[in-house]
């Protein structure tokens, strides 16, 4: 009976581990969470123009609940459409893909993190002050022509109004939560969080 000698008992570190190792000098677990979700958005959900934003320094933070970070990026398809907006678009024959790609904020979190309404509100308040680097890709989308362009223009006008009246919902962000608990296998789940009472989608 021969015994095979195992040369390297440890598997190769994953790309994700390498990414986290290379990018985070600190041992802040929040940084690792942020990078893990960024990685997930980039490679599983094919988001582009991803950026990481720090939230204002005055936000309450401690060793247990580090200052939250934010990610922003452009999803390949629209993630959320308000039900009234959807109806408006349907009436004008517009589809999600006709619209310009839009940047969306993602709040990276890990299971077991302590959150509170105060923290959630602070992140939402911080979102308006964050400056996003100009999107280089937004111009590359082929603009539709003719009647559709007109409809689109009409839509964007209405949209600008709706942003003020909040009839199509107000501030929104994705809450990304990575499963890091006991037996956690790194799954990331995403939930749409919106400020105020926004009626649910029906599909």
């Amino acid at each position, binding site marked *: 009976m021969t015994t095979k000698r195992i040369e390297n008992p440890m598997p190769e570190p994953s790309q994700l581990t390498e990414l986290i190792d290379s990018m985070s000098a600190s041992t802040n677990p929040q940084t690792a969470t942020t990078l893990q979700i960024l990685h997930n958005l980039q490679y599983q959900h094919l988001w582009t123009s991803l950026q990481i934003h720090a939230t204002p320094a005055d936000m309450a933070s401690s060793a247990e609940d580090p200052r939250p970070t934010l990610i922003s990026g452009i999803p390949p398809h629209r993630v959320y459409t308000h039900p009234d907006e959807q109806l408006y678009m349907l009436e004008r024959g517009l589809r999600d893909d006709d619209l310009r790609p839009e940047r969306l904020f993602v709040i990276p979190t890990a299971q077991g993190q302590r959150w509170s309404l105060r923290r959630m509100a602070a992140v939402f308040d911080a979102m308006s002050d964050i400056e996003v680097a100009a999107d280089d890709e937004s111009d590359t989308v082929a603009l539709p022509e003719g009647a559709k362009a007109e409809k689109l223009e009409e839509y964007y006008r209405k949209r600008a109004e709706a942003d003020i009246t909040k009839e199509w919902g107000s501030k929104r962000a994705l809450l990304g939560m990575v499963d890091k608990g006991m037996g956690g296998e790194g799954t990331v789940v995403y939930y749409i969080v919106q*400020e105020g009472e926004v*009626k649910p989608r029906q599909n």
Partner: protein
Amino acid sequence: MDNPTLPIPISYISGRYLLFSIDAVTYLRREHHICGVLIGTLSQLPQQNVFLGLPLELMPEEARLLVDKGVACIVDEAKAHGGMESLAEEDRRQYLRELESQGLHASRLLSDRRDQNREQVLKKLDEKSRAKALKAKEKKEDKDVSSPASEAKEEPLDLVAPEPTTSTPASKNTGRQQAMGVTPATSYPPLPQPNSSQHLPPPEVPLSYPLFAHLSTRGYFLSPGLRFGCQYVAYPGDPLRFHSHFLTVSSEWDEGIDLMGIVNGGRLGTGVKKGFLLGGPQKSRDEAESEAERVESVRTFSIEWAGM
């Protein structure tokens, strides 16, 4: 549907808040979006649990909201019923006479309806036999027969309404009518309405009251939410006609929220096409002078599964 006089007395019985007056229930539902939960047996359909009747149980939050709005007051019903011992002889007799006349009225109404129904049936039978006899004729007569009956059944049996002046065939029989016994819904009369000095203080409410009041102010109808796994179910309109929009959970501003709770709520809501609504007042009870101040400071967040 008569509008009740304000403030509406809410019965406080053994720590719970109840309404027994149908006019109050209808009014509060229509004007203040207060639904409560019907917990009583419908005497006309007593063997089922789908449609229930009076009394209406109010959450302490609902009672508090109405008291704070000045629409209702809280009456200690056990104490108020001590008043049965001091009824004046004259009031007692008058009340009994009133009940008897209601009972007589009811038995007349019922026998009228029975007679009407019998006539209907006879008429139908008659027409059927005629139709059979004259088979050659086209049968179009029996189409408009049913309307008077269906109108009659939609009318509520109103005991205090004035008696109809037109004499129906049945009113000939009134001589041998016996008054039916009546169990009134409320005790006022014979009891006098308690005056404001006897009202109880506003109900104690749970920490979730500000969120409840906030949503109610914004026009939502709210009902208890445990069977949907939340604190309140929020409806955009009267639950009689509309599906709910939100499963609602309240939290204090600095209270820890388990992220798994958000995931559970989001999943639970999305599964039934409802949003999960998380919210609460920015001010704690120590920081606010009144619950009203807390209500003012409520912020909410709507959560749905992103589908990715």
